[in-house]
């Protein structure tokens, strides 16, 4: 049998006791605990004995045993902190280069942290201005048709469900209903303004804390044809807020097939403007009860699967009622599902506070960021900050040679471990606070670019600097400082004073070299990946912007008519000398617009298919250089009042069973489009209809004739002085329409806008690549300095013995070169595979990846790394060996 091993009580528990206990009681307590421990060891076994020991240590934590902090210690503490700050300052000034690198490295990564903090603080302040925000829930649902479930829940529900909840549910304090689309041009007397708003019921003022300046919250939205204006819109319309009882006329519809309507509404209230951080935004509210009258004929309105336009918010008495509410909703859906074929609506409740930060839903009221984006951003920021912290750690330890003598003396004089730890923590906090100042500047510079990444970001976030936010920033900086300084502090506190003072090379800093190498490889790997990915994205972006769409877009200005008569504008613009041609169209193709209908071949009526279409005039095809492969263009006279003719693209030929090589056969045949029989007069070469990268969705396209359906004027302009031409067009526009501002965009600019998402990720990618390259460069610098410092003597001796500078350079840098090569060897294939397998197959018509992007990225990264390597190694290699060796 083995001799029984000495079992002792847990070390940490003993330390804990020694830490908190008064010194005069400690010995007795420790002795007692030991005695009991020995006793338990024999009876209950080692494990139980140790457990009891730990429990007893905690039980002894009583008022009379706790050591009271002494005033003098606190005083000394404060004095010492002052001294630490002073020495930190000195060491900062002494090593200017390192301090700069440290501060810059931390600052760059911290600026990312600040961005994320500002973003989160904005997102978490959303909707908190409602007094009862913690008790408001939104009813969301998931649509299931024929056993096929939607992936996401939708923020909207049906008006039918809204009515049922309002009328028959118990245990709720209030229900607020919003409905999409109370928008249009509002006319008061001579004045007309476009305003956008929502339909809303009277519950809105009960549930939410929108404050009414004028009017009665109980009744303001009760009667049909009532409208509540925000203060701003009231001032815009009337120049005043005392507008109760006045009337306004809302003109809505009129374009894209919606019926034009003019209705008179009575103003029953004016509310304070909606705060920025509200996910519900509107300029006016129309009473929901109006829809009972206007939509009385519309059978869709109250059908169970009309799930797309109504938002319902419920104020519950407390959280227990939320469960009851959900159960009630479930019962409701069981009952109502039967009214619509094959449909199931699954309900859920979403707390108001989660709307901006929670799950990604479809059909949101306004732009939201979605949890996944937030999480990705947070993760990226975390990686960046962590990696910068590691660098700080790395650099501090690498520089330890210069600080150890100071430490040795401190320890000899009587500094304890805890003092040394404090000193280095204070130092790193000082550095990170300095970095914060720089980071804050960077934050202010980067903020507009960050908000500009995506259109919706600007609408969602303000990122204004407030005292609370600054406090968060400082807290963040202190945490980063503590985290970055923790390992150097522990490292330095372990330094043995005697050894250090006797012999400098006895420091145990050589441990962990492998980990640091792995860190370098990891950082460079990420750098290479980030820069390569950015370059690949850039190539794709350029590719799609200059994509051959099958027609010309150069110098074409698209003017949105916004309900005005095309003829009127056309007449005005045609007089300008710069204008070379004018056409009209229903939509702008190839920028992500889709407009579709069913077509049927009269020969095979059972075979109907959905195609995309555009409605144009006779000038459209020539103006855009669309190529006709057979037949001819529309002629101005041929249309007349009745639509008779259609032009198809090559893809539609297959539907007619006409071979592509002989498109002429299709001419003269009849196609049934949405109930009308149209004669095919021409076949146009295939072109990009939806968008260059939409994977050919709706690639069967027909072109219809209908000048009266125009929504856009396509104007070909050849102008030397564009701003002047624009102002001329604007003048003409103002004569026709002084309500809406001119909306004119060049076709190419519009295509670029369509790829803004790609541009955004490219921008973000390049920023990230820049960051990571900075950070890894700093990491590499630390490592190189570390190595060269330790090998100073070796290099000097080699030099004395006759080694050349080139030889020494090679000797010092070959290890790092190997690391860089490994990093590239891992990073490049990973990037390639990521794009080749994961990303690009999802993007139709993408550009192939080239050698260019891959070699350029590596070259940049390697170039910077070599520069760092050379600068440090050269310094050592050139140093005078006598200077180095004489100190020995």
């Amino acid at each position, binding site marked *: 049998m083995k001799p029984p091993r000495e079992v002792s009580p847990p070390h940490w528990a003993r330390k804990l006791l020694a830490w908190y206990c008064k010194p005069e009681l400690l010995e007795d307590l420790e*002795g007692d*605990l030991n005695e009991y421990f020995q006793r338990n060891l024999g009876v209950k076994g080692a494990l139980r004995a140790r457990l009891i020991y730990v429990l007893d240590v905690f039980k002894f934590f009583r008022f009379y045993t706790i050591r009271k902090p002494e005033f003098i210690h606190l005083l000394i503490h404060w004095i010492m902190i002052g001294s630490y700050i002073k020495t930190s300052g000195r060491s900062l000034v002494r090593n200017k280069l390192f301090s700069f690198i440290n501060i810059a490295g931390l600052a760059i990564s911290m600026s990312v942290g600040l961005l994320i903090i500002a973003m989160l603080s904005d997102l978490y302040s959303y909707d908190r201005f409602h007094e009862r925000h913690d008790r408001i829930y939104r009813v969301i649902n998931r649509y299931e048709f024929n056993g096929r479930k939607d992936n996401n829940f939708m923020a909207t529900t049906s008006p039918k469900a809204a009515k049922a909840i309002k009328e028959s549910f118990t245990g709720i304090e209030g229900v607020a209903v919003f409905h999409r689309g109370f928008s249009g041009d509002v006319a008061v007397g001579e004045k007309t303004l476009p305003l956008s708003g929502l339909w809303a019921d009277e519950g809105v003022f009960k549930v939410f804390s929108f404050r009414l300046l004028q009017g009665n919250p109980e009744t303001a939205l009760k009667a049909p044809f009532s409208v509540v204006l925000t203060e701003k819109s009231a001032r815009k319309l009337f120049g005043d807020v005392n507008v109760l009882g006045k009337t306004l006329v809302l003109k809505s519809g009129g374009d894209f097939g919606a019926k034009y309507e003019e209705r008179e509404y009575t103003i029953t209230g004016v509310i304070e403007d909606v705060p920025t951080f509200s996910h519900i935004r509107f300029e006016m509210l129309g009473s929901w009860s109006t829809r009972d009258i206007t939509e009385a004929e519309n059978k869709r309105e109250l059908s169970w699967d009309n799930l797309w336009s109504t938002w319902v918010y419920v104020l519950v008495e407390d959280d227990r009622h939320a469960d009851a509410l959900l159960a009630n909703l479930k019962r409701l859906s069981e009952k109502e599902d039967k009214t619509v074929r094959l449909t199931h609506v699954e309900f859920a409740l979403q707390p108001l506070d989660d709307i901006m930060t929670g799950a990604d839903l479809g059909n949101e009221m306004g732009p939201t960021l979605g949890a996944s984006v937030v999480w990705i951003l947070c993760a990226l920021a975390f990686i960046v900050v962590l990696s910068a912290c590691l660098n700080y750690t790395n650099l501090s330890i690498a520089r330890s040679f210069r600080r150890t003598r100071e430490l040795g003396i401190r320890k000899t004089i009587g500094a304890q471990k805890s003092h040394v730890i404090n000193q280095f923590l204070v130092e790193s906090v000082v550095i990170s606070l300095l970095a914060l100042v720089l980071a804050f500047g960077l934050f202010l510079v980067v903020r507009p670019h960050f908000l500009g990444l995506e259109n919706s970001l600007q609408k969602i976030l303000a990122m204004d600097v407030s005292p609370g936010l600054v406090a968060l920033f400082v807290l963040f900086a202190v945490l980063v400082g503590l985290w970055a300084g923790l390992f150097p502090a522990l490292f330095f506190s372990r330094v043995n004073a005697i050894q250090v003072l006797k012999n400098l090379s006895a420091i145990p800093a050589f441990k962990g070299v492998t980990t640091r190498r792995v860190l370098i490889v990891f950082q460079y790997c990420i750098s290479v990946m980030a820069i390569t990915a950015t370059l690949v994205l850039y190539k794709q972006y350029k590719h799609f912007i200059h994509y051959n769409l099958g027609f010309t877009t150069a110098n074409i200005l698209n003017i949105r008519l916004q309900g005005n008569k095309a003829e009127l504008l056309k007449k005005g613009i045609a007089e300008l000398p710069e204008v070379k041609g004018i056409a009209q169209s229903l939509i702008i193709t190839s920028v992500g617009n889709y407009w579709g209908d069913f077509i049927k071949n009269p020969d095979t009526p059972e075979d109907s298919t959905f195609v995309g279409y555009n409605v144009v005039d006779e000038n459209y095809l020539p103006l855009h250089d669309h190529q006709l492969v057979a037949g001819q263009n529309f002629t101005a006279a041929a249309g007349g009042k009745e639509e008779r003719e259609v032009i198809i693209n090559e893809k539609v030929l297959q539907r007619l069973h006409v071979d592509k090589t002989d498109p002429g056969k299709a001419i003269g045949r009849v196609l049934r489009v949405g109930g009308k029989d149209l004669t095919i007069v021409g076949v146009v070469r295939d072109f990009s209809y939806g968008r260059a990268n939409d994977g050919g969705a709706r690639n069967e396209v027909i072109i219809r004739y209908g000048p009266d359906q125009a929504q856009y004027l396509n104007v070909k302009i050849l102008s030397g002085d564009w701003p002047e031409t624009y102002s001329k067009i604007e003048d003409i526009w103002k004569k026709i329409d002084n309500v809406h501002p001119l909306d004119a965009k060049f076709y190419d600019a519009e295509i670029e806008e369509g790829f803004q998402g790609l541009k955004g990720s490219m921008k973000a990618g390049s920023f990230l690549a820049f960051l990571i390259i900075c950070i890894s460069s700093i990491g590499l610098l630390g490592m190189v300095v570390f190595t060269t410092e330790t090998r100073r003597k070796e290099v000097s001796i080699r030099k004395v013995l006759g080694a050349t500078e080139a030889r020494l350079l090679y000797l010092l840098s070959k290890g790092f070169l190997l690391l860089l090569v490994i990093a590239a060897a891992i990073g490049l294939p990973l990037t390639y595979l990521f794009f080749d397998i994961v990303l690009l197959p999802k993007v139709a018509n993408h550009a192939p990846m080239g050698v260019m992007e891959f070699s350029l990225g590596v070259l940049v990264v390697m170039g910077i790394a070599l520069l760092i390597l050379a600068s440090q190694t050269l310094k050592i290699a050139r140093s005078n060996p006598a200077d180095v060796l004489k100190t020995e």
Partner: protein
Amino acid sequence: MKGTNLGEFEEMVLLTIAVLVNEAYSVAICDELEKTLSRPAKLGVVHAVLNRLEGKGYVKSKLGEATSARGGKRKRYYTVTNAGKAALVKSREMREQLWSRISDLALKNI
């Protein structure tokens, strides 16, 4: 807080110290208490009481010898002071006075 009254458990601990004479240190007191009370006496509680008694001046303590079972730590021995003795005597007299006022008959009928 420094009252002079003696709680029930305090009295038991004080008596135990008197019983153990020269051997009265925390663990021994605990063991002795467990024997007399026939229920476990918690070390933490006994320590707290000892601390309180010392505060009231009923016991005094001095450090004794170390043993290997205590991991080389010394024992703290407690002895009853004159004030402690007086408190014990007073408490006993109070009880006896009460006892003497109960007639045998009354006790029987309970």
